[in-house]
């Protein structure tokens, strides 16, 4: 299973074209966030009450990658351009992998921009750099996991698309969580938490990296790696079985 360069570059180009305005808007929000959040992301002392902004930033990143990835594969299927691509000598697995890699790269580019604005605003010192590297590594895997989930959702042949599927998943998990409030089944609660993090992966569970338990970060790294591998395997398996025809 290897990357296919033309598919990878073409996907990057398509993202740049179709969602350019969206990305600019997203970047502006992130820029704003990085200014508002102050030193909380990487400094040792968290500012009271601002932790929620960090969480919000995490979900903002997740949301932005989701928006970037909408139609990743399903759009090719919908407009019918996928047939011509799949008739070329490339494997379906390399097509899926290339799509995922392009989305992950776009998400990581957003991350880089986010941290760059932070550094420009707050300056650079050894502690900040060391914490940023840790945070950035964890967030890269977060982006990889989100991208893999989007890739999987994008290969599912459903009429309401991957966003609809996401909404459905979020709705089902939320409903079950609400129901479980009454019964308090611990195992179900944990399962729902895992399901939630699979659909909307996140990294930072504490207000700041410095404030986080390194063990938590390690867990999130492993968790997101497992999600990435599992979701990509699912996407490859789904694509291998799908049929495509203009006659459909």
């Amino acid at each position, binding site marked *: 299973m290897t990357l*296919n*360069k*033309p*598919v990878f570059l*073409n996907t990057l*180009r*398509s993202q740049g*074209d*179709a969602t350019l305005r969206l990305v600019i808007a997203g970047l502006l929000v992130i820029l704003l966030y990085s200014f508002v959040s102050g030193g909380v992301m990487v400094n040792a002392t968290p500012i009271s009450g601002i932790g929620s902004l960090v969480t919000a930033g995490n979900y903002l990143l997740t949301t932005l990658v989701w928006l970037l990835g909408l139609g990743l594969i399903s759009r090719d299927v919908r*407009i*019918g*351009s996928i*047939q*011509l*691509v*799949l*008739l*070329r*000598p*490339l*494997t379906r697995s390399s097509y899926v992998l290339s799509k995922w890699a392009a989305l992950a790269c776009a998400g990581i580019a957003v991350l880089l921009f986010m941290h760059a604005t932070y550094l420009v605003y707050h300056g650079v010192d050894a502690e900040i750099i060391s914490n940023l590297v840790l945070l950035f590594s964890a967030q890269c895997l977060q982006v990889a996991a989100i991208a893999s989930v989007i890739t999987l959702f994008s290969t599912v042949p459903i009429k309401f698309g991957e966003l609809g599927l996401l909404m459905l998943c979020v709705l089902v998990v939320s409903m079950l969580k609400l129901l479980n409030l009454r019964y308090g089944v611990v195992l179900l609660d944990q399962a729902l938490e895992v399901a939630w993090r699979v659909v909307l992966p996140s990294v930072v569970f504490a207000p700041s990296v410095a404030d986080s338990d390194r063990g938590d970060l390690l867990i999130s790294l492993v968790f997101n790696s497992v999600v990435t591998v599992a979701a990509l395997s699912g996407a490859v398996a789904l694509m291998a079985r799908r*049929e*495509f*025809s*203009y*006659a*459909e």
Partner: protein
Amino acid sequence: MSTEEAQFLVEGISLTKTYRGSNRPAVADISVRVLPGEILGVIGPNGAGKTTLMACLLGLLKPEVGHIRLGGHPSGNLQANALVGYLPERLRFDPWMTGWDFVAFHHALTGLPDGERDNAVKAVLEDVGLDPQAWSRSIKGYSRGMLQRVGLAQALVGRPRILFLDEPTSGMDPDGVLHTRQRLQTFATEGGAVVVNSHQLDQLSKLCHQVVFIKEGRLAGTERLAGLASLRWFVRWVKTEGVMDVARTVMATLKFQQARVEEDGLEVEVADEAAATKLVTTLAKAGVPVLAAGPLRGDLEKYFREGS
């Protein structure tokens, strides 16, 4: 695999495909074989199963029954895909692409060396007669005829041996139709195999060596076109101003019907080979350059109406 099997570039045997949720097969027990140098036409009413058959042959759909080999390889695998060029009825593309980008993207997908790309794309765009000024224009602004040309370029890029074309001349002007027909004939002459879906029976009759008729998913008939209309012949000559009056006089003298205008000349159908020979001889004596004469490849429309 026997030598006889290996010589077919396209071979689909006993193909049956039923869509999920349907109780009737879209394609039922259809077999097609195409030799190198041959052009196969697939005709039939709307919904007959032509596009499904093509998708099965290409490996995009998996028939429940039957097997397919393209150039000796199972359809859908990488070796088979490397041999294939495909033009769908309606070309789909990323809207940001220019004509050049589109063809270059597909050249890149073939895995041929990057260094060849510019020359290969230029050659194939020239080959299909797409106006060079349009190469760098956004493909979404192309007319239907231009889309067909760039689609054909996409199908030809990467040196395929087998072409699958769905309505290749739909929306094209007469020059484009003629150009495409000549290009496909050249492709076949060079040893390639072509499978064409079309409703333009007149075009198919001029292009194809054999035609399969499909109706309600089943093979209603297979015909070698030379045998179809051996009773009638055609004669075609140039349509330049200087010779048109002379030709008209010849036609009136021999009591033939007046010629009809084709893309590349004036053409008339005559009853048989003897009549064609007489007409050719008379036109030549009168100084009218004759372009071509031969047995009509078939009155497909009439045949199909009767056959179905």
